[in-house]
């Protein structure tokens, strides 16, 4: 897609690159951050998988597909994305319902929709469709949104979140909810409203706890909040992953030298608990490096959002970036034992993960936002 370049006007944006990257609508700082992060991730995965080349091969293919999707999405101008938003959202909701209905027939596979040639997880589409929809909806009128529009936006978030929670997939519904809420936050949701929500949540959860739950459900919540209560179940993973992290020390035990993962104390070492393997082998230094890479990506994402020229792009770009941070924080918090156990992968590092493509599509959106800006006269 050739972009508009007025003659006679001076180049007003110094960050605007030229050449191949510009033609492909890619953003160099973001792209660099992503490639470095994925490279680091592959290094860790090689160790965590027990040097399994088959695992590496599969992960490389997935990354290739995910990057291709990112490049493809980057070609779509934000205005087009905006036009698509309500349609994508509607399609997403319909597919979530289809999954629940069809899922009851085919036991145990309620997240997937079988489209014959390939299987598709509608909740992944919804992760992007929800912030797009809310951003589209709020950008129609001037910001900050009035309360009646807030209520409608709230319903738009709640419906897919509940549908996904029914599957049941707690991790994904949390991510979808946060995506929607971040759009509201960035759109200028008043602080008084945010404070009010927090204040009402406390008595509501107390009532739910006292009267809305059975004993076994309460037990589950307690174990969820404090996994160490259940040393045979999830608590076991957390205890083991804390040992892995702590024993790594400042410099780590060295690449391929982690003992926790090799003795199979970490049952999900390549997927949700890969952060523990990294911490054990690369130590505190390795963690700082990893977090620095994530921080570069997140800050670049927020910068791109702030530079965007229309409300829709700003809200969407900002929310996509913040969700990426939520992935990181929820996963590392879980693995290091300060957050409850929710099945969220370490983004771009964990093995497999259907979310890889969605995350990269999100970055494709950010790149599109940044590279499709119109040049304003100074």
């Amino acid at each position, binding site marked *: 897609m050739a972009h508009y370049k007025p003659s006679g006007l001076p180049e007003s944006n110094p960050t605007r690159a030229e050449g191949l990257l510009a033609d492909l609508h890619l953003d160099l700082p973001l792209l660099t951050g992503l490639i470095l992060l994925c490279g680091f991730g592959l290094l860790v995965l090689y160790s965590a998988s027990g040097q*399994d080349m*088959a695992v590496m091969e599969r992960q490389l293919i997935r990354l290739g597909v995910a990057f291709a999707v990112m490049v493809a999405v980057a070609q779509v101008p934000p205005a087009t994305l905006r036009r698509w938003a309500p349609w994508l959202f509607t399609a997403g909701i319909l597919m979530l319902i289809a999954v629940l209905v069809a899922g009851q027939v085919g*036991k*145990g*596979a309620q997240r997937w929709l079988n489209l014959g040639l390939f299987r598709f997880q509608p909740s992944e589409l919804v992760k992007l469709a929800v912030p797009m929809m809310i951003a589209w909806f709020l950008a129609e009128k*001037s*910001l*900050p949104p009035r309360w009646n529009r807030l209520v409608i936006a709230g319903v738009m978030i709640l419906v897919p979140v509940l549908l996904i929670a029914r599957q*049941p997939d707690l991790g994904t519904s949390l991510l979808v909810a946060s995506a929607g809420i*971040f759009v509201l*936050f*960035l*759109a*200028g949701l008043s602080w008084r409203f945010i404070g009010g929500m927090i204040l009402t949540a406390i008595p509501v959860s107390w009532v739910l706890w006292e009267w809305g739950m059975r004993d*076994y459900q309460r*037990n589950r919540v307690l174990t969820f909040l404090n996994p160490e209560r*259940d*040393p*045979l*179940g999830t608590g*076991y993973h957390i205890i*083991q992953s*804390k*040992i*892995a*992290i*702590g*024993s*790594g*020390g*400042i410099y780590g035990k060295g690449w391929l030298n982690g*003992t*926790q993962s090799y*003795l*199979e*104390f970490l*049952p999900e070492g390549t997927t949700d608990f890969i952060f523990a393997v990294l*911490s054990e082998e690369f*130590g*505190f230094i390795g*963690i*700082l490096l990893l*977090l620095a890479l994530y*921080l570069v990506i*997140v*800050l670049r994402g*927020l910068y791109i*959002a*702030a530079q965007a020229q229309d*409300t829709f792009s*700003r*809200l969407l770009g*900002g929310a996509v970036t*913040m969700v990426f*941070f939520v992935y990181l*924080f929820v996963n*590392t*918090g879980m693995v*290091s034992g*300060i957050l409850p156990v929710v099945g969220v992968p370490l983004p771009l590092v964990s093995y497999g993960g259907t979310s890889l493509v969605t995350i990269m599509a999100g970055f494709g959106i950010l790149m599109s936002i940044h590279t499709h800006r119109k040049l304003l006269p100074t």
Partner: protein
Amino acid sequence: MYQATLKDYLRESRLFRARAITATLIILLLLLLLILHLAKLQIIDHAHFTTLSRDNRVKVEPLPPTRGLIYDRNGVVLAQNLPTHSLEITPERVKDLDWTLQELGKLISISDNDRKRFNRLKSHQRRFESIPIRVQLSDEEVARFAVNRHLFPGVDIQAKLLRDYPLKDVTAHILGYVGRINKRELQTIDNSSYSGTTHIGKNGIEKYYEETLHGKVGLQQVEINALGRVIRILESKPPEPGADLHLTLDSALQRVAIESFGEENGAAVAIDPQTGDILAMVSKPGFDPNLFVEGISSADYNALQNSEEKPLFNRAIRGQYPPGSTIKPFIGLGGLESGVITATRKNYCPGFFQLPNHSHKYRDWKKAGHGAVDIYDAIAQSCDVYYYDLAQQMGIDNLAEYLAPFGFGEKTGVDITGELGGLLPSREWKRRSKNQPWYPGETLITGIGQGYFLTTPLQLASATATLASGGSRLRPRIVKSIRRNGEPDPRDQPVSQQQQIARQSESHWDSIVEAMIQVTEGVRGTARLIRNEHYRIAGKTGTAQVFTIKQEEKYEEEKLEKKMRDHALFIAFAPADAPRIAVAVIVENGGHGGSVAAPIAKAIMDRYLLQDTR
């Protein structure tokens, strides 16, 4: 306009920037907290965790409890745990599954069914759990694999206890079966008390008494070497085995009951009227529950599931049939107690009944009619016209009121999972569920146990037992006593009374019993075939329509396909003057209650009353 938009644009842009900066600050703050937490783990507590990591050759393993056993009332084992060896694969630890399966197949025979079961279980279970590829290995197979074990990482032989039901189909519907815990069950069980347990009750008693049978999980700390193999046990807290159940069931009687069905299908329930003990409970055809324990192959499952005879269906507690004429003693009692009829008053039966101002003829099964009949004849010869008239005089609401205390239309509360409650129709019920008025004709057919009326064989047996005991309705029970861990003797479960039916007059009850004796003893009794010199039987035959014939058509058994034929029913208790057993039998598409169902009931009562007095 442009001005306003531009102003808005700038304002929104500023607002967004403020929010983005706030977001950045929050993100930085959270990252800082995370880094501080990690620094605490990795720098401050480093020494502590290093020690743990070095000592981390200690693993905690669950010790699953052994499941309680199930015995019949005479101590015959009905469910036990047999030690077996199975070959299991942990998918997470196997690199090339296809290769592994192929090579394993060269050592140990693996059938297509084994493969299918493995694949199905694999998609239902977590990757780090081991899944059986072959069960019940022979000693030779165990040895052959043990020699080659080093070639198959992630594959191992597991010695474990396998649930076994020695009587197979004889007790299948009562006991139910255990099967591997599936993902849906994982959502509702307490995960830690089931860690190490692979099986859970899926049906019948195994499900109803799951908590009692399961026991409590134990723990052991084991030291492992660098390859993860256990070197020694450091500390252990033994599991508490599950409690043993002693049933009220008499397995010999159960077998007799099944055999007396011959080729026929149906259900039979025998209850001790004094205690509510279920002595026998048959649903025919049965199935082999052992097939389900290690995961049934889909071919076997489909064969069971799609069979027209529905072997998986527990007819005794879930089969809902019209009671047919077996309802007549209960309605007759209602007629006497409510004063609508007296025992001696006669009524003329011309072979049909008509409602005033209606042309429709409600036919008697005997086309020529029974002539003048009283309540004794009406029950002994099963006169329909007498009952059309009685039902019409009582009215539907009154009928329902007198039938409900016998437990019709509600679950008996038996301690077996899956019971259904039948249906006792009433004006109120029809309005609520169908939003339709009640028609007078419907009262008539309710009076002979047809129409909307539905009962389960267990309900019929329980109602018969209630009649036999003079109105004391006990909750039918299958578990007589439970022996918990550590107790030397089983402890009896209490007998629980559901209802004591208020009696207007002793003589009304006696009349009904006398009429039921006439069924088997009278010259024209419909079940005179089973009359015998050892004891007297109070019974009632019945026929339940499967297929409705038109007004002027004749029901000709020989011309109907077997599955369209009527169900044959029989209820009875004996000895009539001091009842020790109450029975309900239904033979699907059997035709006549007197000739098909009554002999089965007789066989059950013979075995119970004559065998153990000898």
